[in-house]
């Protein structure tokens, strides 16, 4: 079973509100990923880190999305001004390297009302 911890499990925000979710990767895993899974089971890669450095990221949706993985603190993904289209399951995942299996957390389900 995965040891990637995501909080909160559920998040409800009004349009325009800030939404922040956190992730503690599996111990010893320096590579961390964020994916968005929509209701049609489509996955969108958002960003990943190795230690605290960004490896790759999409054009973070008009800059509303930001993420970080500070040393000795949980990683986080924040949406500055939530929109209805942001409603989705946000999955954090971690791995030992960029060429090994990836383990996912249970996700944070964001609902924007």
């Amino acid at each position, binding site marked *: 079973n995965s040891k990637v911890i*995501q909080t909160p499990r559920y998040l409800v925000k009004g349009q325009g509100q800030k939404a922040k979710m956190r992730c503690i990767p599996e111990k010893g895993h320096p*590579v961390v*990923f964020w994916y968005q899974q929509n209701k049609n089971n489509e996955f969108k890669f958002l960003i990943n880190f190795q230690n605290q450095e960004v490896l790759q990221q999409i054009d973070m949706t008009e800059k509303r999305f930001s993420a970080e993985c500070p040393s000795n603190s949980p990683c986080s993904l924040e949406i500055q001004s939530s929109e209805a289209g942001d409603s989705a399951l946000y999955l954090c995942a971690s791995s030992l390297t*960029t060429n090994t299996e*990836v383990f*996912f957390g*249970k996700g944070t389900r964001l609902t924007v009302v």
Partner: protein
Amino acid sequence: AQSVTQPDARVTVSEGASLQLRCKYSYSATPYLFWYVQYPRQGLQLLLKYYSGDPVVQGVNSFEAEFSKSNSSFHLQKASVHWSDSAVYFCALMNTGGLSGKLTFGEGTQVTVIS
């Protein structure tokens, strides 16, 4: 560009029967391949992985998958399903030439096990 296709959106199977879920990929070389399962209101759980070598790989809960380079496929199988196998199954590909470890997912197959 790489892609993963799972041609069966939904599969219904009787408890105790065998199950095969199809996965086809498009990639210029031999990728790393994975099967994940997602239970309701859960994240993704890794079932098995293929990197190289023996094309038949064993996973958790008696699942196995067979890689075929000639067919660009990585089909998942289970000899005898249990009601608890009802879930959504995703096939995923990792770019072996990249530096990010990013996964490309198929559309998923919803499996329903009936008694």
